[in-house]
C-alpha cells in the first residue's frame, strides 16, 4: 500500500511541477512582450531620426507633412490656458443626470461620484475641466517631494500602478476604506493607460485630493505623460468619452500631470517614487527642480525653432510657467538662435534637408535613444518667484541634469546585480543594483524605498535585501487571473503590512477553484492568451524567421531540427524566452523531430489574416509596427478627431514604408485604403483602419 501511495505522490508532484512551469512560462511571455513593446518607442524614435537624417521630401506637401510631425504642439501660458480650457461657458443641460460638482468640494461630492461611476455614468465635461483647474491650482503649491508623517494619521496606505482599472480602485476602497482625516493614502503613479477607465480613476483621485489635501498624496508615474498616453490608450479614451471637449480636457491633463509631485517621504525614512533611482539621484536637486517644466519626459522634437507659424511656439513639451504669480512674464520668450533659419518656404529639397539638419543636428547624436536632452543653454534658467529656493545658491546644474533626475525617478527598475546601467529595455531610466540602493539609503538616512512600475504576480515583491519594495495595484494586469494586486499599510513602526486582492468575479471564481486544487482552468486561460500574443509576434516576423530557418537548412529540404528552430526563433525575436519549453504549444506537428517551417508559418498566417487581397508581407509589416503606426497617426491627428486626410495617410505610409525598406506599389496602398471605410471627405478614421486589421487589442 505504501508503494501505491508513493506512486500516486510521484504522479501528483509531477503534475504540480508541470503546472508551475507552465505558469511561469506564461508570465515570462507576457512580461517579455510588454517590455518589448516599450522598446518599440525606441524604434519609433529611430524612425524620426531617419526622417531627419535621410529622408528628402519630394514635394512641398511632403515637406509640410514632415515638419508638422516635428512640431509637437503649442504651449500655453497661464492666461491662455484659462481661456482655452475655459469651462464656465460650458452649459450643463437639464437632461444631464450625472453628479454635479461645486467648489470647494466636500465629501458628499466624492460619494456621489463613486456611486455615479459604479453605475457607469459620466461626469459632465464642465465639471471635469473645473476639477482639473482646481487640481492644478492645488498641485502648484505642493513641493516636489511631499512629506507625510505617521504621527498625524496613524497609518498610511500606499497603492501602486492602477492603469485605468477602476474595479481595483473600488476594491481597495472597499477593503481599506475611503480616504479621510484618519486614513491617509499615497498613490504611486501610473493611474492611466492600458485599462479603460483611466479618466474615472483620475477624477476620483483628484476629488479626494482636493477634499483631503493633507491625507491624500499623488506621485507622478511615467504614464502621466502625454507622449506616453498617445500610445497607450489614455488619449484615445478621453476623446471617445468626451467628443466635444476632449481636446481641452487633454490639454488640461497635460498641465496637471506636470505638476504632480515626484515623490513622497514618510517620516523622513521611507521614500516613495514611481520607478526607482540611479547612482546620480540627488534628493536635494529633485526638491529644487521646477518640475512643471517637464510636461513630457519623452520628446520627439528637440529644439525650439520654426517660426513658420507665429502662434506655434516651438516647445519641447515645456510650459512657460512662472508667469502667474508675478503677473508678467518672468521667463523670457523663447528666442530663436540666430543661425536657425526659418523653414524654407520654397520647395527646395536641399534647403529643406539642410534646415532640418541644422536645427536638430546637435541633438541627433545624443538622441539615439528615445529619451534625449532638452534644448541647450540659451534659454534662461530663471526661477520664478513661486519657487523659493531654500539656499540662496544659484542652481549650478543644467536643464539636462534636471531632466535626467526626473527620468531616473520615473523609469528605473531594480536589478539583482550590483551597479547601475542604462535601462535599454524601456528606453529610459536605469537598472540599479543593491549597492546603489544601499548607498542612497545611507546618504539620506532612509530605511527603505517603495516603488511601483513593474507588475508582480503577488501584487508586491521585495528585493535588494528587503530595502526595495515594489507595490503594484492593478490585478489581472496581463489577463484575467494573471496576477494579484496589492497595497501596503505603514504605521509609525514603518513595518509594512500587505493586503492582496484580485478584481473581477471570474478571476475570483477561478481563484476559488484554485484553492480547491484545480488550478488548471486558471492557468489554461491565461496561458491561451499569452500564446495567442506570442503567435502574433511570430507571425509579425515571418520574413525574418524564414531567412533564419533557411540558414539552418542548407540542403533546402524545407525542414529543420527542433533544436535549430528554437535557436533561430530566439535570434529573431530576442524575447529571452525558453523556446524549447514552449515548443509543444507553438508547433503542432513534427516528423522525426524535424519541422516543416514553411507550412508552420503558413498556419500561423492563417490565424492572423483578415483580408485576403492584402499582400501578406504588408500585413506583416503592419502587425509588427502597429503601435508605432498608431502613435504616428495620433501625432498627425492634431485635433484629436480620429481622422486624418487621405493624403496624409498616403504620405505617412510612403515615408514609413521607405524607412522599413518595403516594396510597396501605389496599388498596394490603394488596396489598403480601399479596404477602409471612407465616410467623409476623403478622411480616414484611423481607428477604423486599425480595427479593420484587428490591430487594436480587443478587451476580453
Amino acid at each position, binding site marked *: 500500500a505504501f508503494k501505491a501511495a*508513493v*506512486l500516486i505522490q510521484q*504522479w501528483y508532484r509531477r503534475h504540480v*511541477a508541470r503546472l508551475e512551469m507552465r505558469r511561469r512560462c506564461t508570465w515570462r511571455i507576457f512580461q517579455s512582450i510588454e517590455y518589448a513593446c516599450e522598446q518599440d518607442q525606441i524604434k519609433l524614435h529611430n524612425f524620426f531620426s531617419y526622417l531627419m537624417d535621410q529622408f528628402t521630401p519630394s514635394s512641398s506637401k511632403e515637406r509640410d507633412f514632415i515638419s508638422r510631425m516635428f512640431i509637437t504642439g503649442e504651449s500655453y501660458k497661464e492666461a491662455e490656458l484659462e481661456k482655452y480650457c475655459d469651462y464656465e461657458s460650458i452649459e450643463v443641460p437639464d437632461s444631464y443626470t450625472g453628479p454635479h460638482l461645486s467648489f470647494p468640494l466636500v465629501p458628499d461630492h466624492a460619494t456621489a461620484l463613486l456611486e455615479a461611476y459604479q453605475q457607469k455614468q459620466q461626469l459632465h465635461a464642465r465639471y471635469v475641466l473645473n476639477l482639473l483647474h482646481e487640481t492644478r491650482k492645488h498641485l502648484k503649491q505642493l513641493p516636489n517631494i511631499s512629506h507625510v508623517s505617521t504621527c498625524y494619521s496613524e497609518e498610511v496606505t500606499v497603492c501602486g500602478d492602477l492603469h485605468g482599472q477602476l474595479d481595483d480602485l473600488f476594491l481597495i476602497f472597499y477593503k481599506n476604506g475611503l480616504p479621510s482625516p484618519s486614513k491617509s493614502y499615497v498613490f504611486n503613479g501610473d493611474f492611466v493607460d492600458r485599462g479603460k477607465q483611466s479618466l474615472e480613476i483620475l477624477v476620483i483621485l483628484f476629488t479626494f485630493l482636493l477634499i483631503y489635501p493633507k491625507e491624500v498624496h499623488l506621485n507622478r508615474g511615467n504614464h502621466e505623460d502625454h507622449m506616453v498616453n498617445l500610445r497607450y490608450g489614455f488619449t484615445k479614451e478621453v476623446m471617445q468619452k468626451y467628443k466635444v471637449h476632449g481636446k481641452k480636457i487633454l490639454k488640461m491633463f497635460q498641465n496637471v500631470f506636470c505638476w504632480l509631485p515626484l515623490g513622497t517621504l514618510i517620516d523622513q525614512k521611507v521614500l516613495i517614487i514611481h520607478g526607482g533611482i540611479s547612482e546620480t539621484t540627488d534628493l536635494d536637486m529633485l526638491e529644487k527642480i521646477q518640475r512643471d517644466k517637464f510636461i513630457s519626459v519623452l520628446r520627439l522634437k528637440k529644439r525650439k525653432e520654426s517660426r513658420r507659424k507665429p502662434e506655434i511656439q516651438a516647445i519641447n513639451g515645456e510650459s512657460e510657467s512662472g508667469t502667474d504669480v508675478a503677473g508678467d512674464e518672468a521667463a523670457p520668450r523663447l528666442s530663436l538662435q540666430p543661425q536657425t533659419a526659418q523653414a524654407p518656404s520654397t520647395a527646395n529639397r536641399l534647403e529643406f534637408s539642410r534646415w532640418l539638419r541644422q536645427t536638430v543636428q546637435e541633438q541627433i547624436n545624443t538622441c539615439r535613444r528615445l529619451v534625449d536632452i532638452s534644448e541647450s543653454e540659451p534659454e534662461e534658467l530663471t526661477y520664478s518667484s513661486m519657487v523659493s529656493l531654500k539656499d540662496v545658491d544659484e542652481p549650478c546644474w543644467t536643464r539636462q541634469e534636471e531632466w535626467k533626475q526626473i527620468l531616473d525617478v520615473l523609469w528605473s527598475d531594480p536589478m*539583482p546585480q550590483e551597479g547601475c546601467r542604462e535601462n535599454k529595455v524601456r528606453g529610459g531610466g536605469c537598472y540599479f543594483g543593491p549597492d546603489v540602493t544601499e548607498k542612497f539609503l545611507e546618504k539620506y538616512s532612509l530605511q527603505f524605498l517603495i516603488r511601483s512600475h513593474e507588475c508582480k504576480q503577488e501584487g508586491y515583491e521585495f528585493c535588494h535585501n528587503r530595502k526595495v519594495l515594489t507595490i503594484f495595484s492593478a490585478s489581472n494586469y496581463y489577463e484575467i487571473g494573471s496576477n494579484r494586486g496589492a497595497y501596503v499599510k505603514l504605521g509609525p513602526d514603518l513595518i509594512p503590512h500587505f493586503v492582496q486582492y484580485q478584481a473581477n468575479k471570474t478571476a475570483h471564481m477561478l481563484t476559488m477553484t484554485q484553492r480547491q486544487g484545480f488550478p488548471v482552468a486558471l492557468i489554461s486561460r491565461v496561458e491561451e492568451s499569452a500564446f495567442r500574443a506570442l503567435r502574433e509576434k511570430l507571425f509579425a516576423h515571418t520574413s525574418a524567421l524564414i531567412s533564419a530557418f533557411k540558414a539552418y537548412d542548407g540542403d533546402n529540404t524545407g525542414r529543420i531540427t527542433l*533544436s535549430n528552430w528554437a535557436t533561430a526563433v530566439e535570434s529573431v525575436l530576442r524575447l529571452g524566452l*525558453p523556446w*524549447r*519549453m514552449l515548443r509543444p504549444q507553438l508547433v503542432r506537428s513534427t516528423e522525426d523531430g524535424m519541422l516543416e517551417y514553411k507550412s508552420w508559418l503558413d498556419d500561423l498566417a492563417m490565424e492572423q489574416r483578415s483580408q485576403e487581397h492584402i499582400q501578406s508581407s504588408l500585413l506583416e509589416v503592419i502587425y509588427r509596427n502597429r503601435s508605432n503606426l498608431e502613435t504616428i497617426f495620433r501625432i498627425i491627428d492634431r485635433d484629436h478627431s480620429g481622422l486624418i486626410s487621405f493624403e496624409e495617410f498616403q504620405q505617412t505610409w510612403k515615408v514609413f514604408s521607405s524607412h522599413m525598406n518595403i516594396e510597396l506599389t501605389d496599388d498596394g496602398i490603394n488596396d489598403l485604403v480601399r479596404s477602409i471605410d471612407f465616410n467623409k471627405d476623403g478622411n480616414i478614421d484611423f481607428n477604423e483602419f486599425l480595427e479593420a486589421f484587428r490591430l487594436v487589442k480587443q478587451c476580453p
Partner: protein
Amino acid sequence: LVAEIEKKITEAFEVFDRESNKTVDVREIGCIVRSLGCFPNEAEVQELLAQIEVEEPGGFVHLESFLPVMTKVLLDRRFRPIPEDVILHAFEALDENKCGYITKEDLVKHLTEE
C-alpha cells in the same frame, strides 16, 4: 544530442532562476526535474540533491552543479514516467471500498505509515 539536452535543462533552470544569476532555490529542484519529464519519488529527489552541491547560506543551487547531474539523468533515462495502468492499479490498491476515489487523509496515512 548532449548539447541539446543541456540547452533544455538550462532553459528549464532559467525559468525558475528568479534573480537571473544562474541559481535557484534548492526547493525548486524537484519541480525543475519533474518539468523536464521525469517522475522521481521524494526519496529519489533527495538522492539527486545529495549529488549536487548546495551553496550555503540560503540553500542555492548553481546551474554549473546542476547541469552535469541532470544531463546524466536524462541520458540514462532515469525516473521514467509511470504508465497509466500502473497508476490506476495504485489507486485501486488504496481504494479498499471501491468508491472510485481516495481521500487526502488516506493518502497521507499511507505515506507516513512506514
